[in-house]
């Protein structure tokens, strides 16, 4: 059953929502509002029904004033996450398929302008990488690729998904943006989720960091999640690359995007990721004036949880082990483990031209041991092949 977008004419596009709120450019107004939030506003926000969203509430929770309330926010977030997700942490792992890219994104190791030995995996090679993950226990796999349309085609992904179906119960992709009909083909091949970061919701920053390639089109990028939902995708992963613009305002725009999608495509589940800028090959660290501290990152996660009770909160191995361990149970619901961020990285651990630097180098077994020590059940399987019922009757 494909989800319907009922009354779609009544709801504007996300582009017009962001524009009307002035969240897409000239954000001075929001920076001012954030500074004006006082402790009473924060307390009011925390006293509202847990897990429900309003822009005013989130504004209070991501404000500088809320920094003095992190402990209380953490308590509420922990309680809410426990109630909705129980004592569980879902595990997944990425497989990088290609590092060839036509885009020129200044923050990315795979930037077309960078010179390094690029790699493309054949379907066979990708399947054997996945085989290693399966042997470690993974059942939830994320296929990742740069914008390499010439090689990582819809047919390639469909073939790979078909090969992986027996071993993995949930397959999702984090690849270049596709058209709705292409997403539909992926869905029909057994791919249930797509993650596509807007990177930044600030048009000016977007233009500064995306110097060339198809991805440089902000408007087109913004429409991606609509197309995924229309194709029937169950999981839609959103995120802003943290460090490109003021994180507090980015969180507001991100939340508006999520809220828009949830109301419009009510059958797709939205999750948030928190990719934080980390040094990668060819990325000068002085180019990013908006880097987040650990405290900022935690505040952002807690604020989103208190506004979206059932959203998935995903934390990758970009983050160091100690921080990830502390965040389990405060709102995070999905963790990757043992990740290699270069194509072929599982078969050849020496491959070191990753998209970003991994900071949690522990094996999946070590991560699951910590999850258990903290009183959580590591969940490998939370989906089933049999739910893959595409146009069969």
């Amino acid at each position: 059953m494909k989800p319907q977008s009922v009354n779609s004419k009544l709801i504007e596009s996300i582009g017009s929502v962001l524009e009307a709120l002035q969240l897409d450019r000239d954000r001075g107004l929001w920076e001012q509002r954030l500074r004006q939030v006082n402790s009473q506003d924060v307390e009011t926000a925390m006293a509202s029904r847990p897990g429900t969203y309003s822009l005013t509430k989130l504004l209070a929770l991501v404000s500088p004033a809320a920094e003095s309330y992190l402990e209380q926010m953490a308590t509420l977030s922990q309680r809410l996450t426990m109630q909705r997700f129980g004592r569980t942490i879902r595990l997944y792992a990425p497989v990088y398929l290609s590092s060839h890219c036509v885009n020129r994104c200044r923050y990315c190791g795979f930037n077309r302008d960078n010179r390094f030995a690029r790699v493309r995996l054949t379907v066979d090679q990708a399947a054997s990488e996945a085989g290693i993950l399966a042997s470690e226990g993974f059942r939830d796999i994320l296929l990742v690729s740069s914008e390499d349309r010439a090689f990582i085609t819809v047919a390639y992904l469909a073939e790979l998904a078909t090969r992986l179906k027996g071993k993995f119960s949930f397959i999702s992709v984090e690849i270049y943006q596709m058209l709705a009909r292409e997403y539909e083909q992926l869905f029909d091949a057994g791919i249930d989720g797509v993650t596509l970061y807007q990177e930044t919701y600030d048009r000016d920053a977007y233009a500064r960091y995306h110097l060339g390639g198809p991805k440089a089109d902000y408007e087109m990028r913004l429409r991606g999640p609509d197309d995924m939902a229309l194709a029937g995708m169950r999981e839609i992963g959103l995120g802003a690359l943290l460090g490109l613009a003021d994180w507090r305002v980015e969180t507001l725009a991100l939340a508006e995007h999520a809220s828009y999608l949830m109301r419009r495509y009510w059958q797709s589940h939205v999750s948030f990721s928190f990719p934080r800028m980390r040094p990668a090959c060819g990325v000068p660290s002085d180019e990013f004036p908006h880097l987040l501290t650990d405290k900022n990152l935690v505040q952002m996660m807690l604020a989103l949880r208190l506004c979206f009770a059932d959203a998935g909160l995903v934390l990758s191995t970009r983050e160091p082990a100690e921080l990830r361990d502390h965040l389990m149970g405060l709102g995070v619901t999905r963790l990757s483990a043992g990740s290699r961020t270069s194509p072929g990285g599982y078969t050849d651990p020496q491959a070191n031209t990753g998209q970003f630097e991994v900071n949690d180098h522990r094996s999946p077994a070590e991560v699951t041991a910590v999850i258990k020590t903290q009183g959580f059940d590591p969940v490998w399987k939370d989906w089933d092949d049999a739910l893959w019922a595409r146009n069969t009757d």
Partner: protein
Amino acid sequence: MEKLIIAGRAFDSRLLVGTGKFASPKVMARALSASGCEIVTVALRRVDIDNPTDDTLREIDRDRFLLLPNTSGARSAEEAVRLSRLARAATGINWVKLEVTPDPYYLLPCPIETLKAAEVLVKEGFVVLPYINADPILAKRLQDVGTATVMPLGSPIGSNQGLKTRAALEIIVEQSNVPVVVDAGLGLPSHAAEAMEIGADAVLVNTAIAAASDPVEMALAFKLAVEAGRRAYEAGPRDPLRKAEASSPLTGFLRDE
């Protein structure tokens, strides 16, 4: 206490327990044991139903518990039916807790797809226990197609809010010819007792046990509450609102003529 009869099978316990959200399969097993339950539901999406060494399944003693697979995650009748068929083919279990929840946030059941799936599954010989909103007409429609129970929610799943749908539940209990199992939203033993007092045949609890600080103790508390509520129901409670009696007869002035 009277026995609970579902599809001709008798059970001493009127508490059904779900297996999600526990800190570990071991904790789950201890909680199941403490709850005294005889029916345990497990999400097909979470387990390898055909693999006896699955972490969760191996902790559920099949001699002691009836394993009730559920179709959690299904968005349509087609998906729920497919999942049920595969589960039966793999295990031989023909009982299924039918859940069709197209809304991924509140996990509210779709009445239309649930009815469609129930019709197909009953025809195929399944014992169907459908999770529904507290809708008395839907409960009748499901009973008409031959489901073994109806399982209306007390409040949204995992919400711990108790019997927010009490008025509709009372109608379902009053009208139903099949056992009524209140399925979701019971956050405290007192909620479970309340459901039993108004005449529900059984309750199903998961989050309130799994997410408690001490799931084993909470499981026992629910066991006792369900028993207390059922015993109270069987003892014939007086309805404080509708069966009130004045302490002096109001019609004592009337004389036989």
